């Protein structure tokens, strides 16, 4: 949304790469813990907490991955309106503003929800429940930031200069 100078763009890319690395670290930790869980079943150490940690880490992964998805314009959407180039640009900007609004609400309410739960501890881990809910406000806030700093002309449906009609391929995203 906000045009960035080349140096700032590099900073933004680095920031997103760092989030990507964090996602990989969390994902690898999950894979290891599930493996430990399988091994544990056969040798019986009784590490019953692995499943809960994996579930918490999955929420962290999804929410920390969200800004990366948005920055790279990989969010799944429906793109069937075919308008003029100028109207398409404004349509995509309105869509970004509305997305921002939703993430801002999610972040704000998520933060309140996290604070309310901070004094409780999780049953099997004994840590504050704030750790469990924190990825929701954090990921949503980072998602807002990603919407602000991403290059809007990299959107799949963004009209290119050569007067081509907007992308008529339809919905993006295809992991089916």
């Amino acid at each position, binding site marked *: 949304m906000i045009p960035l100078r080349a140096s700032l763009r590099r900073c933004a890319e680095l920031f997103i790469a760092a989030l*990507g690395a964090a*996602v*990989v670290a*969390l*994902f690898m930790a*999950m*894979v290891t813990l*599930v*493996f430990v*869980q*399988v091994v544990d*079943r056969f040798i019986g150490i009784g590490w019953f907490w692995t*499943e809960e940690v*994996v*579930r918490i880490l*999955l*929420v962290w*992964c*999804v*929410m920390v*991955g*969200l800004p*990366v*998805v948005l920055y*790279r314009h*990989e*969010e*799944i*959407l*429906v*793109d*069937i*309106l075919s308008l003029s180039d100028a109207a398409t640009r404004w*349509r*995509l900007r309105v*869509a970004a503003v*509305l*997305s921002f*609004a*939703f*993430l801002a*609400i*999610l972040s704000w*309410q*998520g933060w*309140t*929800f*996290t604070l*309310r739960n901070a004094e409780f501890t999780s049953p099997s881990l004994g840590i504050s429940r704030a750790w*469990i*809910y924190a990825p*929701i*406000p954090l990921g949503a806030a980072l998602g807002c930031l990603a919407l602000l700093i991403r290059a809007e002309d990299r959107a799949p449906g963004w009209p290119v200069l050569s007067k081509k009609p907007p992308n008529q*391929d*339809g*919905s993006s*995203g*295809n*992991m*089916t």
Partner: protein
Amino acid sequence: MTVAFLFMIFIILLLVGVPIAFSMGLSAVLILIVTSTVPLLVLPQRVFSSLDSFPLMAIPLFILAGSLMNVSGITTAIVRFASALIGHVKGGLGQVNILTSVLFSGISGSAAADVAAVGSMLLPAMKREGYKPEHSVAITAASAMLGPIIPPSLLMVLYGAMTGLSIGTLFLAGILPGLTLAAMLMIWVWITADRIGGTRHPRSSAGEIGRSFVVALPAMFLPVLIIGGIQSGFFTPTEAGVLAVFYALGFGIVTGKLHLGNTFRYFKEAMISTSSILIILGGAALFSWIIAREGFPAQLAQALLNLTEERHLALLLIIAALLVLGMFVETISALILVTPMLAPIAMAYGIDPIHFATVIIICVLLGSITPPVAIILILTCKIGEVPYARAIRPFMPYFLIILLGLLVVAFVPQVTLFIPRTFGGYDN
């Protein structure tokens, strides 16, 4: 009324181009603010509880295992084996394309992965051997449908996580429908072999078949490991996913195709794809909560019951409605949207839930090859460098065959339930 407004706002946001996840979330938030005194705190709470699920972890694992196997050259091995086995049959590489998809389905859980792997290898080969590109593209897109039907399947993991049905049983239920569809597609390629161009390969010797089989064996062992592991009760689907990842890592290291750099990249891409999928589940959480609170699923079931008490007719109506939805909404989003509304209908009509799930999954999948927005066909056209408009006509017969296959699955429950009942101890 509330539900009607909810859908209206949702559709407007969708048309503006707001991501599906946020369209659902924002419309639900607006409805909540206007029509009720429930605090908005329910939003983060619902988002959290929709993601807080151990089975969902299987999704990044199956995506990762599939891409690791692919980079390690397993697709080449599968294509060689399939061509040695049936390259001489009428339809040549067209038949090979379908058989490759069947075998590749056992390591991939999605149609897009299937198209990317099988298409990028077979489409150029088919072009070289004189097959008409638009027909090659049509066969590739049609056979890619097998990816999410034959286990493992991301759609089945999602459906199981949303409804609490056994993912292992869903996996078993997909095998026979997948093979039935594959057989129907192969028959059509056989009948129309003269129209699609190309030449058959000479028959391979038993030695060649044997050798290519040994090289492709690691691909065929993976689904056995996953399904066998789950069915024997040793592993949950998520744990089977981790074993599949370790197996794929081992295979990649043995074949020398994996190093630290690309392994890191595959881990990252698998999780980022998962994030883009699961955020829809998060966005849909409050939406589905409002729909359930308004009693809409029960009303929908009742409305359908008032319309007809005949379960086959009800199934037909559901199929028709889902096909229309699939024309506009992408597969996973469609599944997440309809599952909470439709699952109670199966109960109202006494339809077996596993059978119903398989029908719904094939239905939403069919949406990904229904023009105008046939996303999988579009993707295949990009890989095959064929204009989308030119591929639609030759693709129509394949579309109709898959539709026919769907009707067979819908009206002959045994196709879905035979394997779960015989081998999975499913006794419903």
